[in-house]
């Protein structure tokens, strides 16, 4: 589904991502872990077209998407959510998700149709599935942090992706919220038959749902494999010794 080959990105000579090769198979739940500043977000930005890699290739469904703009990548079936919440704050919850449907289904250039009821059912279905069904009319910028994270996921789903990239979907959540959100993500992934690649700091969470785990450290992959392989990797243990956060 996704094949990333040897991508690199440097900021002013600092190698944030120093040659990462990684594949995600269709239907898989894969995770990237790594300490702060390891380059996880930068890696996501390279894959989604937000940043152009200095070198390397990104292939989605057999198609080379290296250097494409994010809106093209999105159209090819990749949805993403952001570590720092990234929504349309003055629009209502409904409008946030509806806009993603309008864009994805190619209705953005209808100049005279009325927008109000457009994709109403689809939008409500997404809001229900991320647990925001009762908040549709609220201005999204006023939602709680947890709700905004859910909305973020809803916006990503409305682009009807095959591959979902979630950058710390539970950042800033309490332990309970984290557990609920992860269960929600797992359920949605299975229901919709999605492929999932996510980053996360909470090790328990990662080891509970990921089928493949890649460990990033200082811009390089230092280990990759099933949860038990990664758990027992000496290099990973060394990097994480004393670095386990929260």
């Amino acid at each position, binding site marked *: 589904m996704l094949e990333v080959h040897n991508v690199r990105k440097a900021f002013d000579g600092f190698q944030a991502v120093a040659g990462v090769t990684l594949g995600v198979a269709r239907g898989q739940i894969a995770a990237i872990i790594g300490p702060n500043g390891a380059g996880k977000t930068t890696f996501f930005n390279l894959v989604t077209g*937000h940043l152009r890699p200095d070198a390397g290739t990104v292939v989605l469904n057999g198609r080379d998407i290296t250097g494409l703009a994010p809106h093209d990548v999105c159209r090819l079936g990749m949805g993403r959510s952001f570590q720092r919440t*990234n929504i349309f704050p003055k629009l209502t919850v409904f*409008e946030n998700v509806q*806009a993603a449907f309008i864009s994805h289904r190619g*209705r953005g250039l209808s*100049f005279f149709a009325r927008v109000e009821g457009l994709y109403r059912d689809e939008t409500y279905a997404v809001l229900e599935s991320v647990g925001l069904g009762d908040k549709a009319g609220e201005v999204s910028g006023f939602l709680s942090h947890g709700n905004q994270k859910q909305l973020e996921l809803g916006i990503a789903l409305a682009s009807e992706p095959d591959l979902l990239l979630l950058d710390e979907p539970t950042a800033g959540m309490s332990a309970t919220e984290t557990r609920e959100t992860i269960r929600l993500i797992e359920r949605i992934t299975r229901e919709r038959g999605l492929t999932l690649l996510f980053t996360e700091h909470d090790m328990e969470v990662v080891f509970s749902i990921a089928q493949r785990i890649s460990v990033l450290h200082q811009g390089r992959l230092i280990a990759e494999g099933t949860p038990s392989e990664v758990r027992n990797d000496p290099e990973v243990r060394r990097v994480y010794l004393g670095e386990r956060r929260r």
Partner: protein
Amino acid sequence: MMTRLGRAPWPLLVVALALLVPAVGSRFYTFLANDVLIWALFATSLNLLVGYTGLVSFGHAAYFGIGAYTTGILMKKLAVPFVLAFPAAGIFAGLAALVFGFFCVRLTRIYFAMLTLAFAQIVWAICFKWNEVTGGEQGMPEIPYPALDWMDRLPWVGDLRTSDHFYLLTVLLVALCLWALRRIVGSPFGRILTTIRENPERAEFIGVNVRRYELIAFVVAGAFAGLAGGLFGIFNRGVFPDFAYWTKSSEVLIMTLLGGMGTFYGPPLGALALILLNQQIVSYTEYWPFVLGTILVVLLFVFPGGLAGAAGIVSRRLARALRA
């Protein structure tokens, strides 16, 4: 009671009232109303950029000017009838916006604003220098009124002056343009523009080609500004280079902010307020710019939503008071 007021067909009532002005008001009031209507359209076209897409243009007068010259030159020099010369203003202004906008949307925020200003100054300079076509510094006086013979045959309307006939035409055309703009901001396209205003980065990740949408918005805004300009040249009985000058750009921006950007009827309200204020205060004091500046600062601090925002707050308070 408030809800019933809210559901009244306000736009139609305003149009009907506007149509009555020549019959009940003096010649001066018709003149004033004509001015307000054209600026209302001009300001609303700018609001599509500033209020809905989040792009601040300092050079919107360029398209107003191009529209004015287009209609003016076609009608005066080439004797093209108004039915063609008027839409041509929108088309030419839109084409210019397409060319200039292509470069502007490649820059972000303040640089976007500066480049729109730079292009507007180029347009102004061309109008100022190109004597053979634009009449240069002297401008182009005596743009003819459109032939409105059909109005002579209408009851009531037939006896009015030619300038009143043109005013009635302005009411209808501005209403039509505002209706079209209203449909556009309430369309799926309009919704996508608001996502760009709110968060262009995120908009890209729902699949929106941000630059392309910004360019389309720029062209639509430019075209409607051009239509406003086309009317203004005739209303003004002449077209002059200062139509495209930066002072016009800032005037229309002030109207938009004063009225309340992002609300559809804010900018027309701003046009009305600014022109009336101008009229009133200029006759009392020569310090008009100072007074205007003070009013603006106070208003924007107390009511960041402009006049429309203030009206919204007041009407909600009133509604609550009436219900209690």
